[in-house]
């Protein structure tokens, strides 16, 4: 009897600890102060295309009507991108800049719920506060559109949203946004784009069984999240036969040096990169050939 009581107390304590550990934290005060400074919508548009927001939150035909809806198939089940247009009911029209920053850096929505990392905040949190503020200004400038996405179709236990808090403890360090990096065709800027807004590692870095990225194998190629085929190795060894010009040209026109075309999700990436100033793509090529 006494053993049973002890067991129950232990189980309750464990559940309590899990509950506490999985609690969404507040936004970092320094980030909150920074993101409240008004952003520049024109600069934010460049961030928008680098981050590929339209790929999941809009259709290819109307890439700035952010009604959401695109289905992402994951090993844990399907998830639909939500409406992030400025519509106050269906979208994020009643969010503040701080709410937005909380989603980008910590994967927490306005209601204080964890967001599933299908939304690539593990990468987006590597954006500077200035870029996030500019992106927010751009999103606010777009037209509100109606439309509500279905909830995630995850099975147990992945449908327990609170558990994402434990996932974050395993894979995310406390947020420390980088300083702004000068936009130029340098490896340093390329690194900033690849690790942050460009979120290249979300598909090109392998994941472990819980869907956490494996940093030691960064960008070395991985099974696609939807289970169809593999993303290629884009580390130095994978790109041994490609020079900077090859990478830059491939990202700009969607053709590989062999004359093949980039297909699958990469076709979308090429469309997005087409909106960027030329030096941005050159910076990405330079960084990849600089070997991290």
């Amino acid at each position: 009897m006494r053993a049973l009581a002890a067991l129950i107390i232990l189980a309750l304590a464990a559940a309590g600890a899990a509950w506490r550990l999985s609690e969404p934290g507040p936004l970092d005060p320094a980030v909150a102060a920074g993101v409240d400074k008004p952003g520049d919508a024109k600069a934010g548009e460049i961030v928008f295309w680098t981050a590929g927001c339209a790929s999941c939150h809009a259709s290819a035909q109307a890439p700035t009507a952010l009604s959401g809806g695109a289905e992402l198939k994951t090993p844990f089940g399907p998830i639909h991108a939500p409406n992030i247009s400025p519509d106050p009911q269906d979208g994020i029209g009643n969010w503040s800049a701080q709410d937005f920053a909380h989603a980008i850096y910590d994967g927490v929505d306005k209601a204080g719920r964890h967001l599933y990392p299908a939304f690539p905040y593990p990468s987006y949190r590597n954006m500077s506060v200035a870029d996030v503020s500019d992106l927010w200004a751009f999103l606010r400038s777009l037209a509100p559109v109606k439309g509500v996405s279905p909830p995630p179709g995850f099975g147990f236990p992945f449908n327990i949203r609170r558990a994402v808090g434990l996932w974050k403890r395993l894979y995310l360090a406390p947020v420390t946004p980088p300083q702004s990096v000068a936009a130029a065709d340098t490896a340093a800027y390329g690194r900033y784009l690849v690790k942050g807004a460009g979120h290249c590692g979300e598909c090109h870095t392998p994941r472990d069984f819980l869907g956490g990225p494996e940093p030691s194998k960064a960008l070395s190629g991985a099974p696609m999240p939807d289970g169809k085929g593999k993303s290629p190795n884009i580390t130095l060894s994978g790109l041994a036969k490609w020079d900077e010009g090859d990478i830059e040209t491939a990202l700009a026109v969607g053709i590989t040096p062999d004359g093949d075309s980039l297909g699958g999700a990469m076709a979308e990436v090429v469309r997005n990169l087409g909106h960027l100033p030329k030096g941005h793509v050159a910076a990405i090529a330079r960084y990849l050939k600089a070997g991290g």
Partner: protein
Amino acid sequence: MRRMVLAGLAIVAAAGAGLAADDPLAARQALMKANGKDTKAVFDIVKGAAPFSLETVQTALNQYIETAEKAPALFPEGSDKGKTQALPAIWKNKADFEARFAKLGEDSKAALAAIKDQATFKANYQPVLKNCNGCHETYRAKEQ
């Protein structure tokens, strides 16, 4: 003897012709391979690794036009089996799939008429290539 050799050659030729009709996988893969070969030469021009050559560009565009004409017939129902990257989505959206080839043909013809030199090449070639990405995005499987 001579007659036998001729007969033998005729059989080989007939087998070759039959291959194209009976083996749509081989035929369409040969088309795509030819596209890749010509596009590789164009890639070098875009990259700046080769000088602009009107002949190279026109060869590629004519190759795309040929593809646009021949390819739709090379995806008969059920030809998603075997060694192919063709996705079942092709047969679910056959009308869209075929419209994309038609557009590839139209865009290639427009580019063929418009491209005279390096400047017109820069302005007019990219829209053609978008057809390659657009179709491969939806209808071709990634390599396993």
